[in-house]
């Protein structure tokens, strides 16, 4: 057993260097836009300079964001759909997944298959558009929450987690006379907090990043969520004539992008904590 053999040690060094390069390549784009957001506009648009460390720092770009009514309303819209979408999503998904994880329930296999099938075949964007239109949800924020409330993938993840719980848990509760309902709320749910947290965060991130459905369904500027406004800002030539606004400098563009990333960075440690603890390990094993 030659863990300290020369080849192995060289490999370790190279491997470490490789991951340092990989880590840098993942982060320098972020550092780039952070730098651009902190520089005054004249410096931010300078060519011939590498923008990784700001040559002058000003928070003016961020002040502009908060002054801009369109951006702040976009933020609020995104918060609204994220919170409702995540909570609603995890509740519906968890309930369905728990039911599907119990093999003794008649119809279980069929329903599982029907859920899985939606991953492989669906109507497409036009039929979905027609449905949303018929439901009268066009230009309503609810069109960004309800039609995309659940995903089959998350159902499968939660189902795998529930399946992986020791059957003795539920069985001993039943033996003691607990009903299915009591078992679910008092025994299974408390112990399933890790997967509930993980899936909530998955849905939350998805809703926060929601872009295309908003492009399709939302027409009023003040109902547009953050990613849509962000996109409009990023592609504007700086002297905007549309309903957005006047003279968006490069630094303000980048500041908006940074502001859109910050909430994700905030929940990120929590995400990490839960899924590196082996949540998905359970899903894979089970």
């Amino acid at each position, binding site marked *: 057993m030659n863990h300290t053999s020369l080849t192995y040690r060289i490999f370790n060094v190279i491997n470490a260097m490789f991951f340092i390069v990989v880590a840098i390549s993942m982060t320098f784009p972020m550092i780039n836009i952070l730098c651009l957001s902190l520089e005054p506009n004249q410096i931010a648009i300078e060519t011939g300079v590498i923008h990784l460390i700001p040559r002058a720092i000003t928070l003016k770009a961020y002040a502009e964001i908060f002054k801009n009514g369109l951006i702040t309303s976009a933020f609020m819209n995104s918060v609204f759909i994220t919170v409702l979408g995540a909570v609603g999503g995890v509740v519906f998904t968890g309930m369905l997944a728990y039911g599907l994880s119990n093999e003794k329930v008649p119809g279980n296999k069929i329903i599982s298959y029907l859920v899985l099938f939606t991953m492989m075949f669906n109507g497409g964007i036009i039929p979905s558009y027609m449905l949303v239109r018929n439901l009268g949800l066009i230009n309503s924020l609810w069109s960004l929450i309800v039609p995309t409330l659940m995903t089959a993938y998350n159902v499968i993840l939660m189902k795998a987690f529930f399946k992986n719980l020791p059957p003795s848990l539920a069985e001993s509760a039943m033996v003691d006379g607990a009903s299915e309902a009591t078992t679910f709320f008092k025994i299974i749910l408390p112990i399933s907090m890790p997967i509930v947290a993980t899936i909530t965060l998955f849905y939350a991130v998805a809703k926060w990043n929601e872009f295309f459905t908003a492009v399709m369904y939302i027409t009023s500027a003040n109902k547009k969520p953050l990613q849509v406004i962000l*996109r409009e800002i990023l592609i504007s030539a700086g002297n905007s004539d549309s309903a957005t606004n006047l003279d968006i400098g490069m630094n303000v563009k980048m500041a908006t992008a940074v502001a859109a990333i910050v909430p994700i960075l905030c929940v990120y440690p929590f995400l990490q904590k839960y899924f590196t603890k082996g949540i998905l390990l359970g899903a894979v094993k089970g």
Partner: protein
Amino acid sequence: MDAMINKPTDKFQVYNSKGIRSLIKNFQRYKFIYMLMMPGILYFLVFNYYPLYFLQVAFKQYNVFSGLDNSPWVGFQNFVDLFKTKYFVNALWNTIVLSFMNNVFGFPVPIILALLLNEIRNQHFKKTAQTLIYLPHFLSWVIVGGIWLNMLSPQGGLINELLKLIGLQPIYFAADKGSFRWVLVFTHIWKESGWGTVLYLAAIAGIDIDLYEAAVIDGANRFKQVIYITLPSLIPTIIVVFVLSLAKILNLFEQVFVMYNPIVAEVSETIDTYVYQIGIAKGEMSFAIAVGLFKNIISLALVLSTNKIVKKIQGYSIV
């Protein structure tokens, strides 16, 4: 992945004894479970299965004034016209090429990263590296596309500045038909391969330690252990990931939509962006739905046939 792999079992074990009476008893017993599942089932019925009703428009000549039910039936004519349309055929080709590139270059990356990550001894370093490589997956394409387009810009973009530093000419990556597909593939891999390692790392962590110990006794070095134990143990996971990815293989929308422009549209217009262009932007519903239906049938056929092949080779199926 046992939960996702269906081993052949006795399908009738639920209905074994006493027939209908036992069935009704079961329904009553699990009343709570059924109530619990109801909302989720309703959701899938309304938002995933009901829209399939609209697919019939693919076989009609949709007229906004006559509405859905009164538009004339044209059978497969829409599909025939589709293949005669230059833009559709082009979009189809682009989708195939881009998907192919994404998979050939992108599929092995998470596997290799996972294997290499697994070799890192220092837990702190490993966790930090993981944290950093997962991050791009959680950002939207608006952001990722925006950041990369900015960095690849010929005026002051970071990448071009670095090129100038080593003496090369700046390249207008995003407006060059030759390089744009590579831009798409590269940014796609940059964004998604980190996250792709999660499943593989979890699978690796689940491999029986005894296997490694036995290999060490037999004199295998670290490298041989990876080839003969880790990789083979990963094959079930790899297969599941691969089959599931086939379902999405023709879905290339948000990234392209956010990053492309009229100059490179010829090499990057995908099926979905084409559907958007003609369906939402131009209102040619029949065509748009026909394209969507076509795409879905192909994906479904791919998944089912690959599933069958896997079943024959490995003895179990994913779907």
